[in-house]
């Protein structure tokens, strides 16, 4: 008899917890993907919105990374100028330049005597004839100090302070205003990336949340039936959380593609511009680590959006 057969089959026990969770998560992983696949247009549009929202801060991040790279290469031309007292002899000046070169944090020095300074000024300034009027050479001897590559602004300022205190030095000067301005601009852009990223992150959470909310509304009856037959909230919640995961993943993949496309589109013009400045600068895209972070961010934001929505709406659905 069929009922007896049913009886004998009903002696089986549920799986142990870990096996059960593995089976259930695997099932929901593909079930939620299949559910999204059955509505490809809606899914793609949602993923695209998320992708654009993630691509904006990611693109700005790429921009600041490249600007930092440019400023880093410009640091090579950063020099400290030590103007020596008139009483310092040429021999002492040259010796001092060698002593300074041996200091930690110094890459190179170049001693320019008073005579050389005058000659350079005469040839480069265009005021050579005016200098003939002067009886004495007004220009001091200079030691041009190039800090070691990779030194940050603070370290360079410390070096400047040390060199200023040398008895032979009359005046020490670091011409870095332009670099400070660039750093300031980069700081603003960095902050802007953070704020824009934060706002668009919220937008991603809201977008996923709203999509999941509509999904919950559409499946209200199904949820009610599941609760009737004893499905715990965790069981009902799971497919929605995985849906958020898939939206986040698809959105971040879209964002990666958009950033890559943007980088490729701008690399030609930026290299042309760089070549006009005798630079070999090439535009870099997202690094492997940053790409991974972008994927992770998309997934986490999608999951958070789904979780908040499910948490808010599931409790309101009670079986009738």
């Amino acid at each position: 008899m069929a009922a007896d057969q049913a009886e004998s089959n009903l002696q089986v026990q549920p799986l142990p917890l870990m096996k059960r969770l593995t089976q259930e998560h695997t099932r929901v992983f593909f079930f939620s993907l299949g559910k999204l696949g059955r509505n490809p247009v809606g899914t793609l549009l949602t993923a695209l919105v998320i992708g654009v929202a993630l691509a904006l801060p990611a693109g700005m991040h790429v921009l600041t990374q490249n600007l930092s790279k440019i400023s880093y290469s410009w640091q090579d031309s950063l020099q400290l100028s030590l103007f020596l007292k008139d009483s310092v002899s040429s021999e002492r000046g040259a010796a001092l330049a060698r002593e300074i070169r041996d200091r930690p944090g110094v890459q190179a020095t170049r001693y320019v005597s008073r005579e050389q300074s005058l000659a350079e000024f005469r040839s480069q300034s265009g005021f050579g004839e005016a200098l003939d009027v002067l009886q004495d050479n007004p220009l001091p001897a200079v030691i041009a100090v190039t800090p070691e590559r990779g030194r940050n602004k603070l370290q360079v300022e410390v070096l400047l302070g040390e060199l200023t205190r040398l008895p032979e030095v009359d005046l020490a000067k670091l011409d870095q205003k332009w670099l400070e301005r660039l750093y300031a601009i980069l700081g603003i852009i960095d902050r802007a990336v953070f704020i824009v990223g934060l706002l668009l992150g919220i937008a991603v959470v809201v977008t996923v949340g709203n999509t999941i909310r509509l999904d919950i509304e559409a499946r209200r009856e199904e949820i009610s039936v599941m609760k009737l037959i004893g499905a715990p909230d965790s069981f009902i919640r799971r497919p929605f959380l995985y849906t958020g995961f898939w939206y986040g993943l698809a959105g971040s993949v879209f964002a990666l593609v958009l950033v890559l496309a943007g980088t490729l589109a701008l690399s030609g013009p930026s290299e042309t511009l760089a070549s006009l400045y005798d630079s070999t600068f090439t535009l870099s895209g997202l690094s492997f680590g940053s790409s991974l972070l972008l994927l992770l961010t998309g997934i986490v934001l999608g999951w958070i959006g789904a979780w908040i929505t499910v948490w808010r709406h599931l409790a309101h659905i009670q079986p009738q």
Partner: protein
Amino acid sequence: MTDIIHFNQVGYRYPGGKDVLSDVTFSLGRGEMAFVTGSSGAGKTTLLRLVGLLCKPTRGQVMVDDVNLASLKGGDIAPFRQRIGMVFQNFNLLYDRTVFDNVALPLVIRGFAYSDVQRRVRAALDAVGLLNREKSSPLTLSGGEQQRVGIARAIVSKPALILADEPTGNLDPEMSKEVMKLFERFNQVGVSVLIATHALHLIVHMPHRIIHLDGGKITARRPRTPAMNDLPPFPGEDLRGR
């Protein structure tokens, strides 16, 4: 016979509304099948909802399978419902899934291995005569077949108790008889069954206890009896003439 359901002076009142049930006291023994009858609004559905923890009594105590339902909190409710099979008038099936998937749902929720799920679902579908429709969508089935899917889903995890709320409400007379016979078959293998129905003509020939509700109160009881000739008449109902 120990009781699987015990109501002690149970009352239920809708918030700000009138009493739907008043001082209801009754028991359903383990392995027993009984009917709750009464006209619309008599409190049949509310009584079943109290057993299935879809609402909580405003007075009195409800014990189901030795559990005082008042002691169950949020997270305990779902595991409790897994121990009961529920059948509904409107079937409550998921129409975007196959018959197989609908019946499998209680087992999937409880975390059975897929091979066990397959075996048990097929056994349940066989028991209700729908094994050949396992891949069909419920939308392609008749009302009677959909109700049998609902019954298969209710029995697939071998509950100790089946609750059925007007299970024949949307079915024609022939199919209604078939469905009632199914419940009797499951009762014969030891499952307790409590059915709310107003279709007295269907149950009058069945040798099971009847609890009659009127205005939220039990107004008559017919004991478990083997023969229709022993039936006492119900208030206002000519049971024998139907």
